[in-house]
């Protein structure tokens, strides 16, 4: 199953027997007109349904026919060797878009001949060779392997985007009003602050994001060739909705940038596989409307990236730090809530159990007692930095994982997540057993669970 899940990227080197250089790729990109390259890449993404996690071999073959008028036979012969071989992928397209933004211009020439199309197809193949910044070695430890695979695996489409949107809205609409959240020392009225800043409620914002996602989904379902003008999201796109026009314009402004702005962001996030600038602003302002550079990144704005939308509301560091702490509380409360809603077993779920003497002397964020099993939960809303995620460096990644989930070296007295669980288990095994809210004499198995909001723990090797 694992290889099929991960897929095999077919590169220029597999087809033509030599490694391409980044200069070769840049040369192709600088030759052609930027707008045509961007619109063409978007059409490939639409055909591919790049937001979709399922692999569709027939789509790969159709795209090979269309984009390799001269080299299709060679590309197909390689693809036949790999049943799950990917010539076209979301990751490759993101890498290509990054190259287009960085190197192309308005003064390139039209894409006008089969040879031009074939050069672009070959450029996409080059991307598959160039974006992989890591060759696994036999001596690599688990962390190095995790860091090596993370940039690629994180860009694979996820099937859980809609779940993320639902969870985010529950956190805002259902969890924020809960008493334990409202009484938290770091409480922020996020829903009111959001409406004040953007002119839309978080629910309306999610509706707007759904509306934007409908655009590529509808285009992808059309059987005819999509005209360039239809690929753009027109300024009147939301005019038939009840959403306030000024607020829509404001949010579209927050979600978009022009080429120069995007290029300048790319000089800050300069790792070639770091797509943070596109992730931050997935819409590109063009003449005639907005171009959606990546539908998944748009969708994530109402889901796993919603925290960053909230973060953008607060410009001062002090409030931003408060938000980070408060979001952790909201997440912990959400964890309690989902257990209230869905647990159907016969065990006892205990939010914030304490060692008994002092209520603030917490064993864990939550505990579950099920017959002779004790499950302890620590919830962490911390997010691993993009610098650690896209470094290909196991040491850097390990340091950030340690800081976010075990112990911040700057706060030596305060353990987090894993550190808290370990300390509590040590205490439960050695002392303090009389006042805990369950009978430790009956416990024969202790399970410790770190629950994260950052999906990084689902990536290869991280859980181990």
């Amino acid at each position, binding site marked *: 199953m694992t290889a099929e899940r*991960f897929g095999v990227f077919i590169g220029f080197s597999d087809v033509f027997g030599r490694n391409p250089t980044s200069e070769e790729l840049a040369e192709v990109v600088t030759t052609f007109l930027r707008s045509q390259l961007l619109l063409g890449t978007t059409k490939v993404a639409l055909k591919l349904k790049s937001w979709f996690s399922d692999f569709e071999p027939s789509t790969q073959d159709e795209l090979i026919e269309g984009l390799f008028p001269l080299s299709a036979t060679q590309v197909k012969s390689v693809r036949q060797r790999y049943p799950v071989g990917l010539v076209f992928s979301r990751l490759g397209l993101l890498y290509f878009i990054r190259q287009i933004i960085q190197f192309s211009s308005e003064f390139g020439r039209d894409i006008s001949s089969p040879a031009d199309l074939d050069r672009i197809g070959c450029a996409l193949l080059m991307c598959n060779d160039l974006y992989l910044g890591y060759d696994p070695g036999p001596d690599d430890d688990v962390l190095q392997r995790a860091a090596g695979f993370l940039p690629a695996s994180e860009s694979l489409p996820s099937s859980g985007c*809609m779940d993320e949107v639902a969870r985010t809205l529950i956190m805002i609409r259902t969890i924020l009003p809960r008493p334990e959240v409202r009484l938290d020392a770091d409480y922020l009225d996020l829903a009111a602050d959001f409406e004040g800043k953007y002119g839309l409620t978080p629910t309306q914002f999610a509706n707007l994001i759904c509306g934007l996602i409908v655009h590529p989904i509808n285009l992808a379902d059309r059987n005819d060739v999509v005209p360039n003008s239809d690929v753009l999201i027109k300024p009147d796109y939301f005019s038939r909705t009840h959403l306030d026009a000024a607020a829509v314009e404001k949010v579209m402004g927050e979600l978009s940038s022009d080429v120069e702005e995007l290029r300048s962001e790319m000089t800050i996030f300069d790792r070639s596989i770091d797509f943070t600038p596109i992730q931050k602003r997935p819409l590109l302002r063009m003449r005639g409307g907005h171009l959606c550079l990546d539908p998944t990144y748009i969708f994530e704005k109402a889901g796993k990236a919603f925290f960053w939308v909230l973060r953008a509301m607060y410009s001062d560091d002090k409030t931003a730090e408060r938000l980070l702490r408060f979001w952790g509380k909201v997440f912990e409360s959400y964890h309690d809530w989902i257990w209230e809603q869905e647990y159907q077993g016969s065990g006892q779920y205990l939010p914030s159990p304490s060692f008994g003497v002092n209520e603030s002397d917490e064993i864990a964020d939550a505990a579950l007692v099920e017959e002779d099993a004790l499950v302890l939960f620590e919830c962490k809303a911390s997010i691993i930095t993009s610098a650690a995620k896209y470094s290909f460096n196991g040491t850097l990644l390990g340091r950030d994982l340690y800081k976010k989930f075990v112990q911040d070296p700057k706060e030596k007295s305060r353990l987090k997540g894993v550190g808290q669980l370990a300390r509590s288990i*040590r205490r439960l095994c050695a002392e303090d057993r009389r006042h805990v809210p369950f009978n430790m004499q009956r416990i024969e198995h202790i399970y410790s669970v770190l629950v994260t909001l950052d999906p990084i723990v689902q990536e290869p090797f*991280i859980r181990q």
Partner: protein
Amino acid sequence: MFKNRLSGNNLNEQFRTQCGDCNASETITPLFAVHISDIERLLRYTNARPFAQLIRDFARGNADAKYRAGAIADYVLPLLKRKEVKAGRDTIGQHIEGIFKEFALIFKDQ
């Protein structure tokens, strides 16, 4: 004492280091690091099996898989399907339906 250890040296290594060699009679399993969506999905099957068992099987699936590890669909659900167990409440799924209904209402002609 950590019986049934799984392999690896990331978060689990930290857990073992931090926890030390607890001299107790309980069996302490290794740390399970999971995303909240894993909890949401596992909870749906607590109508059929204790959560502790579900998460233990889930972690075993992770230890076996090298790449996209821990997909519930690949490990836990086939075990349940063989026993013809149906999933219970799906809170997230119900909310998704609600979101689609709300989305339809933003259009003026609805």
